[in-house]
């Protein structure tokens, strides 16, 4: 395990980043705030995937790269793997994390639906950036839901939908956020 910091550092930094962009810099322009937050995530994902694949051979196909995201990459970020991966074999993938760490600690006020969805642009950007660095341009969106209370009371299920196709690479794919 490399160097560590306390989880509060990343939690508070992300919460404050989303809050700054949504409430201060682009107060009445949620689309612009969203793009910025996604862009920050993209940068992070791009750099992280570069670091985590330095010593590996190139991935043989899209599925191998996506499995890397689901296993090794996700483990580096969240100390667990993606719980479920589905595909329609036509370029769309759904990744599901049943206990998405980052949302678990958000305070009650920031759990309002809009704040949550703004927040999710960041992990979407990370995934898009990581895959783009691996040569797979894609469109990424995410959604969250609660598991039934009896299982994990404060857990959020993160569902990420990725669409990787040739149209994405020339910006014509309408699967964009």
């Amino acid at each position, binding site marked *: 395990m*490399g*160097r*560590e*910091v*306390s*989880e*509060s*550092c*990343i939690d*508070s*930094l*992300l919460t*404050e*980043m989303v*809050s*700054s962009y949504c409430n*201060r*810099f682009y107060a009445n322009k949620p689309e612009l705030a969203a793009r*910025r937050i996604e*862009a*920050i*995530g993209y*940068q*992070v994902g791009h*750099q*992280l995937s570069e*670091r985590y694949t330095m010593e590996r051979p190139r991935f043989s196909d899209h599925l191998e790269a996506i499995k890397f995201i689901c296993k090794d990459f996700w483990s*580096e*970020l969240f*100390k667990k793997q993606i719980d479920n991966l589905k595909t329609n074999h036509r370029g769309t993938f759904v990744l599901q994390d049943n206990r998405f760490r980052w949302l678990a600690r958000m305070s009650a006020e920031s759990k309002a639906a809009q704040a949550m969805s703004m927040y999710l642009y960041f992990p979407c950007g990370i995934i898009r950036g990581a895959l783009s660095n691996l040569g797979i341009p894609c469109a990424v969106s995410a959604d969250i839901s609660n598991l039934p209370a009896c299982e994990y009371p404060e857990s959020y299920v993160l569902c990420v939908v990725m669409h990787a196709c040739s149209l994405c690479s020339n910006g014509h794919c309408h699967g964009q956020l």
Partner: protein
Amino acid sequence: MAPAGPRSGDAIFASVERVNAELFTLTYGAIVRQLLTDLEEVDEVNKQLDQMGYNIGIRLVDEFLAKSNVSRCVDFKETAEVIAKVGFKMFLGVGASVTNWDAEGTCCSIVLEDNPLVDFVELPDTCQGLYYCNVLSGVIRGALEMVSVPSCASLSLVFSSSS
């Protein structure tokens, strides 16, 4: 039974949930980069980093007080030591040292030898005057305000990268 004493920074850091520091470092770097693109002026970016830090600090102080069990500091010198030895350690995993006290004991330098925020970071010449770590000033300022230490307006921490 005697009440529990204050806990060391190492002990607290070992007991909290920890994450990959690279994620933190790169996220912060991407935020600074985006701010530079969006705000353009280095002074404005410095100001916003401080403001973000302040907003973080006013909340982070609760966690600090809850976990560190420190008693009320008798003077500013003790406050600075606690920030350096316990505060930085329990969040960033690295301790800091306090030096450069002025004659009145109201001004000092807190030196972080090994700062996770600046891992892999190189500032280009176009960023002259950028206080890259200004978020940390804001965090301390916010935290101190919450515990009623009147913050001097000139609280600023400048981190220079070691050669």
